[in-house]
């Protein structure tokens, strides 16, 4: 017997989530920075507390501010599981982030997943990050 009766089920509706990256979204750190590794191993992935654009919804290549291990760190979104698929924009199976400092340099020195090719258009901002990436799709 299921937990909800049919009457209860009709009393409220549920809808599927929109999969936006916005405040309170948990992201997955995909580089080998010390703080990122610790957070992922402890099962407490970073939580977004601000998105640096007008829409407040992060897309590939956008910067976010995150709460991680009691600290505030910036990061670049390098993978997102968009609900709405767009032509030539890769859809990843997880919401990936690479931690950076204020000047845009990555905190780690390895990235474990492929990065979107569109990130290479922002070479002036993320030159170091692009050079440590192993693969682009």
């Amino acid at each position, binding site marked *: *017997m*299921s937990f909800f009766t049919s009457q209860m089920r009709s009393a409220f509706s549920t809808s*599927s989530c929109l999969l936006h990256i916005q405040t309170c979204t948990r992201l997955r750190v995909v580089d080998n920075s010390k703080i990122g590794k610790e957070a992922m191993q402890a099962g407490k992935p970073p939580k977004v507390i601000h998105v640096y654009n007008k829409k407040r919804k992060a897309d590939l290549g956008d910067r976010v501010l995150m709460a991680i291990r009691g600290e505030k760190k910036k990061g670049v979104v390098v993978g997102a599981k968009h609900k709405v698929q767009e*032509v*030539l924009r890769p859809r*990843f*199976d997880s919401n990936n982030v690479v931690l950076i400092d204020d000047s845009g340099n990555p905190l780690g020195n390895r990235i474990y997943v*492929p990065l979107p090719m569109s990130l290479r258009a922002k070479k002036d901002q993320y030159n170091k990050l692009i050079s440590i990436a192993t693969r682009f799709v």
Partner: protein
Amino acid sequence: MASWSLTQRGLSRGLRLSASMHASYGRRMTSSLPEHLRKALAYSAMYPDLLPEPDLTRRNYVREMLERQDMLSRRRAIDIPEFYVGSYMSITVSDQNAPGKKNTFVGICIYRRNHGLRHQMALRNIVENEGIEMLYDLYSPIILEIKVLRLQKRLDDDLRYLRDALPEYSTVPWDMEPEPHREQGSVPVDETRVIMKPRPWTQRWERKELKGVKEWGLEDRFFKRAVEVSKPWEKYDLMKEYRCMVPLEDQYVVWKEVEEHRKTIEEEHKRSRRRKLLDA
């Protein structure tokens, strides 16, 4: 009279339904169909993008004609091979950001959607343990090359459930060589049945009547609920069926042009493909 209506109905279902359903239907019925109808059945499975939108309120015959001209001229410019959901493919596009200005993606085709020039297809692959999907416009001018690495169908028409299946079922080797296939005859059906990951999933797949899933890993209550919300009478809804199909007389216009195209351009493409395979 009875046999004619039966044929008509079987035909319309065959045109709309999936490739695999079409195959099973074919075994029973196709032998009794006249030659030209049999051809229309095969073409609608082979070129779903060339058929117009079935929704009558959105149809515009002039636009469809112009779009068809554009599609066939694009097919003259590059080789767009026959492929199905479940085929392994590799697509190269020109990309400003990529080194060498070319970007190639290899993967399994998980769904096709939209009609006419707006036809789209999505490829999925696992790259460095990360599942990645790419959506392409089939008739986009930036596509440089479309290769079918393995021509096959799968048990279902929509493989989006691979997102929630174990990763080995959507992995395609990046350096795969195109496999030769027989030009004539039926397309092979890959009867792989997948094992799902534990929930949460992106959709409630147990309600979708999938044939390609072996192990769900769910409790009984999920299947009970799936039976409760299922609509088993919909397959007998003739009007719904009619609304989902393009009338045969409209299809004839399309297939006549395609027949011409197949005789000239596609033969040429096939020959050059075979030459490349032999050279390699």
